């Protein structure tokens, strides 16, 4: 588990807390850069779009949904990383998750926030977005709970709430550690954050039970959230979208994309925060095996989708399939297949699974492929619906590309703020993997 020998308990505290307690100019420059990119590439174009209208983007009569929604689905997909790693591997008592799960959960939370932003960008009249929430009002009007988008609203609200609570509760003992290692305002702040945690056996007992229940609640929630997001598409009667396989397809794709995201984030944490001691080969190896398994499942589901579209013989389906495979966006489609189905097969070889640089490259390629996949779903199904007279074409505009870039900057900003406020690696869980403090150990 530890490549460079086991640290002592005190060293664990020092290493992990030093990221929070000491800040150099490099951090501020990086934070400043990501915030500027976020403002210039995301918020300013969005402001322009709010004034002028959604027409500033590239959507048209043939594709009412564009990159805003495909990005939304990409970010929700990325958010499944934390749930998988943190909750599922907690239930299965996996030891290697202990150093990586906190950052994975943070990724979940911030991906969800970015995805929520994309919903706002997508709406035509976003100043009325509160109408889609079941808030009592003097009009006596309620939202339409039969709508797939309302399932979305409920699911994502629940997921955001549950993820925030999940990560916060898991961090309470670490907030106590920060409190004890700091002075002044920070100490006062973390006294409040940690609720006065002392680490008594009673508190650990309660936290352990509550945390397990959170994990048990969050796992089916994550599965349901991305199924519900897929039903935004699958509950339409559009030929390329109306497939029952969409729910498992999207959930598998989400976990796949999220796990690839974790590999990328682990690389960055290791490199920039000097966590080489805590995130080692065994984590990379296990994440690699997980990615490989997920890529095989993903490829299988893709083949299923193609096969069942073709086998059904419906002229509408065949037209949509033809456009997907051989139309204008065919290069993107085959690029997606290459990056998500074939490139990950390299992870069968130990040489690839144990090399940090190679895994970084593979994980980035997988996520590029997954981003493309969401775009393909949106851009190639809508222009080929039923009436040939109404076929058309969709190409993203400069404002959409800019907002896509800006969203990554927003995610990076949130993550940078996170590493200064919450210990990026769980202190007490890492200690659990060390030798116990016994005389005979």
């Amino acid at each position, binding site marked *: 588990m530890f490549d460079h020998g086991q640290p002592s308990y005190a060293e664990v505290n020092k290493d992990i807390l030093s990221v929070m307690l000491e800040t150099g100019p490099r951090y501020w420059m990086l934070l400043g850069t990501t915030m500027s990119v976020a403002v210039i590439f995301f918020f300013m174009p969005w402001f322009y779009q709010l004034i*002028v*209208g*959604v*027409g500033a983007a590239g*959507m*048209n*009569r*043939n594709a*009412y*949904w564009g990159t805003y929604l495909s990005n939304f689905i990409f970010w929700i997909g990325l958010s499944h990383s934390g749930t998988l790693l943190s909750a599922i591997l907690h239930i299965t008592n996996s030891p290697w998750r202990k150093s990586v799960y906190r950052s994975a959960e943070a990724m979940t939370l911030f991906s969800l926030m970015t995805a929520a932003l994309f919903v706002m960008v*997508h*709406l*035509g*009249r*976003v100043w*009325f*977005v509160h*109408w*889609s929430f079941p808030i009592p009002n003097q009009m006596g*009007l*309620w*939202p*339409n709970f*039969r*709508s*797939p*988008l*309302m399932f979305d*609203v409920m699911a994502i609200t629940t997921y955001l709430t549950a993820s925030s609570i999940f990560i916060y509760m898991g961090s309470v003992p670490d907030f106590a550690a920060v409190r004890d290692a700091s002075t002044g305002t920070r100490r006062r702040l973390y006294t409040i954050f940690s609720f006065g945690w002392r680490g008594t056996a009673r508190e650990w007992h309660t936290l352990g039970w509550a945390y397990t229940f959170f994990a048990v609640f969050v796992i089916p929630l994550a599965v349901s959230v991305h199924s519900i997001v897929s039903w*935004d598409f699958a*509950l*339409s*009667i*559009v030929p390329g979208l109306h497939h029952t396989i969409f729910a498992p397809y999207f959930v598998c794709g989400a976990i796949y994309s999220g796990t690839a995201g974790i590999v990328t984030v682990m690389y960055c944490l290791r490199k920039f925060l000097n966590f080489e001691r805590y995130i080692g080969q065994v984590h990379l190896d296990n994440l690699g095996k997980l990615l490989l398994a997920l890529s095989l499942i993903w490829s299988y589901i893709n083949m299923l989708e193609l096969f069942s579209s073709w086998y059904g013989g419906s002229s509408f389906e065949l037209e949509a399939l033809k456009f997907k495979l051989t139309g204008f966006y065919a290069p993107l489609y085959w690029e997606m297949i290459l990056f998500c189905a074939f490139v990950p097969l390299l992870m069968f070889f130990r040489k690839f699974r144990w090399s940090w640089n190679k895994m970084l490259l593979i994980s980035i390629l997988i996520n590029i492929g997954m981003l493309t996949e969401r775009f393909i779903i949106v851009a190639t199904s*809508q222009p080929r*619906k*039923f*009436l*040939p*007279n*109404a076929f*058309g*074409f969709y190409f993203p505009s400069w404002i959409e590309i800019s907002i896509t870039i800006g969203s990554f900057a927003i995610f990076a900003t949130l993550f940078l703020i996170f590493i200064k406020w919450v210990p990026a690696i769980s202190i007490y869980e890492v200690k659990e993997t060390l030798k116990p403090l016994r005389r005979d150990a």
Partner: protein
Amino acid sequence: MKWGSDLSTLVEKFRQYLKPGYYDEFDYHWTMTIDLDRCTGCEACVVACQAENNLPIVGEKRYARNREIKWIRIERYWEGEYPDVKMGFIPMLCQHCDDAPCEIACPVFATYHNQDGLNTQIYNRCIGTRTCAVYCPYEVRYFNWFTYTWDEPLEQQLNPDVTVREKGVMEKCTFCIQRIRLAKDNAKDDDRRRVRDGEVVPACVQSCPTEAMAFGDSNDPEAKVSKMMKDPRAYTVLEELNTTPSIVYLKKAHAES
């Protein structure tokens, strides 16, 4: 409070609400028939609709980007090469499907089925998710990508009975609901219970030079549309999707060659 009878009506209402197809009987069931044999593709209906319903003038540049707003459009289908071209026109407008895929998509109830069998669009409630447009198989829903304005003096030709829409709002054919409303009000004032056949004429039906379109209440067995619907040429577009549209097309008859 009479708990006994209140409870039984509640239970009965609950049972009724659990059944699909709540409105098994519409008050009026507004239906349109379009005889494709008579349609010449002149697009008079398109112009009339634009005038009647304050359709925005989108402009040439935006039209080229497929951003047009035409509540009724003429679809052209042709077979063969000149001079043996067989051409057909299908005026495509909102079919006001009884099982519309679009109504269930709206998260805020901006589109729903009213008691007259119309698929209504409530502009004030729309928040612009555009899900209804994606779900519509006929692609007859249009979105206000910008707030379109009319240059002087065109704003003087706007119909005062119809609202104008701001950016971010979906719109589509309403079967000229303002004319339906006017006819129903007149019927009520005249102590007549029902609107007579031929009293409600949407703009497109009114303007068609070949009288290819007919509009009326299919609940009334004597109405023109009810008789047209029994024609052997009658069909509905994309009927395999089970959307049960309220527009019945009469197939164009081709001479056997």
